[in-house]
């Protein structure tokens, strides 16, 4: 089966990994090691120096993408131990999922008035005073005298 080897720098949490000609390291023909799983497979390929610079593979026959966890060599054969990248492998379907979002990078998608313990603040506080426009003016104090009856 065809196995494409890539050297990616994307965060593992990224839904889409950058797979293009600049990240492609090699396209090799390989086989799966006996009794391997589709989630944590071990592939066998012929020796190629490009394999050692790779950290990611695409196996079209499996319809999946994999992180390379380990590479072992034995007698001109390389054994690539992998773990499935579920994000990249199912990215199209993941985009169709409706989810209740807990946190999001962009504020336009958020409600920052929700009580959020993640907000940090100092032990210090800013204290300020804001006067009303008017006040009592003792310098303009007035007597008030009340007398009985009309004058």
């Amino acid at each position: 089966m065809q196995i494409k080897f890539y050297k990616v720098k994307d965060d593992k949490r990224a839904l889409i990994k950058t797979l293009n000609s600049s990240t492609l390291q090699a396209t090799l023909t390989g086989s799966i090691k006996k009794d391997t799983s589709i989630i944590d497979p071990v592939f066998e390929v012929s020796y190629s120096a490009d394999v050692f610079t790779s950290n990611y593979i695409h196996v079209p026959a499996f319809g999946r993408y994999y992180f390379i966890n380990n590479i072992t060599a034995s007698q001109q054969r390389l054994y690539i131990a992998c773990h499935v990248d579920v994000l990249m492998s199912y990215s199209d379907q993941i985009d169709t999922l409706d989810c209740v979002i807990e946190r999001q990078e962009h504020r336009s998608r958020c409600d920052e008035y929700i009580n959020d313990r993640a907000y940090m603040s100092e032990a210090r506080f800013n204290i300020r005073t804001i006067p009303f426009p008017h006040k009592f003016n003792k310098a303009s104090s007035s007597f008030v005298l009340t007398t009985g009856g009309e004058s």
Partner: protein
Amino acid sequence: MAKMMSFLGQKIMIGELVGDICYYNTALSYQSTPTYFDPFKYMQDNGGYPGTDHEYRFYDPSTEDNDPVFSITILYASDTLVRVGYKFRSYTGGAWQPWPVTEPLIPAWDDGYLHADITNITEEDRWRFGLWITYVSVASEYQPYNVGDWGFALFHENMYRDFATGDPQVDGAEFNDSLTPPHYIPGSYQTIYQMFDHLGYQMNFPGFGEEWMGTLMTPIDGPEDDDSSPAGGGGQYEFPSWGIGISELPSINIIDSGIATMWTPSPAQVKNLMHFLWSDDFFDNIIKLVADPLENIIQFGVVPFDLSSWAGTAKEVKIGNVGSGVTMTPLTEQYISYDMGSLSIREAWGNCLDYNNTKVSVFVPYVGTFDLTPDEVMNCDRVNLRYNIDLFSGDFIAEIYVKKRMPSGRYLGGDGDNEVPMYHKSGNLMTKFPLTGANYGRVYTSILSGAANAIGQAAGGNFLGAAEAAAGAVLNANSVPVERSGQYTGVSAALGATAPYLILTQPVQVKPGKYGKMEGYPSFITYQLGTLEGFTKVLSVIDNKVSATDPEKEELERLLHEGVILPERD
């Protein structure tokens, strides 16, 4: 013992049943082991109607007087029972009269309630009667007849008692008013009902007597005894608010009455008047209507603002109808409004810190410092402080008006230019002066008593202007409460600050750069992931329809919960 039960969702108070209960129909009599009872078959086999009879005696437990019954209402519900009949027999002449041999009477039907007048018995015997309740026919489509429950609620109504209000026993006997003929007074003080289960067995209720040997089956209970059922969710999602209006001043005052005249004299005019009061002319000419001519001076004090806006045309002051020769400016109003103006407050952070961790206090002259709710004033259109003052006594109400658009989008107080008085504090801002030694002694005593009671209250009207004690506590990071003002009593209020102001204690937010990429902001909104970009943490996947293996699906949801980075969308 009365017991509260529920029937058809309505609460019914079971009154006390006194006396023996007789079974007429042995098919429904004492059974230690319940057996299936087929009423339809019984009718076919026996050519008659099974039923039960009960002797009811009604009395008023408060007086132990026999309570005559003039009518009964039988309430029933059943998915098998179609028509209900009854027979009535009276206890007259010291003995029970025989049951009528006629067919069961079928009372008028009225929305599931059957009314029957109890007639042909004397009034003294109306408190005791036998009632035989049966069913006339059963809907054949409900075979077998062990489905559903059927029961009777028996209301007894006493037309001579009006228990419509104030009688706690009436509260349990609520039923549809529309079924009450004019001569019935609903909700009479005793309501008894008999419940039958779907096997035709009467249910046992405490207080019915030891001879009651019916088998207790599942009673028909109201919603509060059943399993929980769906409720709620029908909110209108509307938050209307209506204007309260500005507090109005009284329309009539002491000036209008002519009882007194209020002046705003200058210091020189006061001196001239005092000179007149103690002059020989005063004592020679005063019409001695009062023992102490100074009693014509009702009160004298100082307010901390200019009164020229409420001053009339100067004229001579008369004391005891004697012209003093002193000219003063009279006041045209007793009640005035003194507006301190408005201000607005803007959020510092635009998030929950502006509300949860922010404290807003206000210093109000002659009152002290007290707290405001950030929800009311933060990001408001305006906060307005206004005093309504009685210039006669110096008492005032200081009100804080707020105009703000709420999170619902509606304005507090309704749309338009409405303000709502959200805070009200009272006090006294007049420094009063005694005119004699005796007067000083009187007011000094009342000042002391007023000071003792000044906490949380306004102690006004006497020599020393008093104001409400208030404490604006601020919780800092160490949670140490702070008192910004103590007790405002005595002359301290007049010596204190006269400029009102807000005090905002706001947190210092700490947020690193690229916080959104690292942690994200709180959302709790439903989105399709394909519409989002950047760091996204999922609370829950509404429907995981990804065609992956189960372990892959579990890992996918775990990653979504931990947070993923979605690509930029075109």
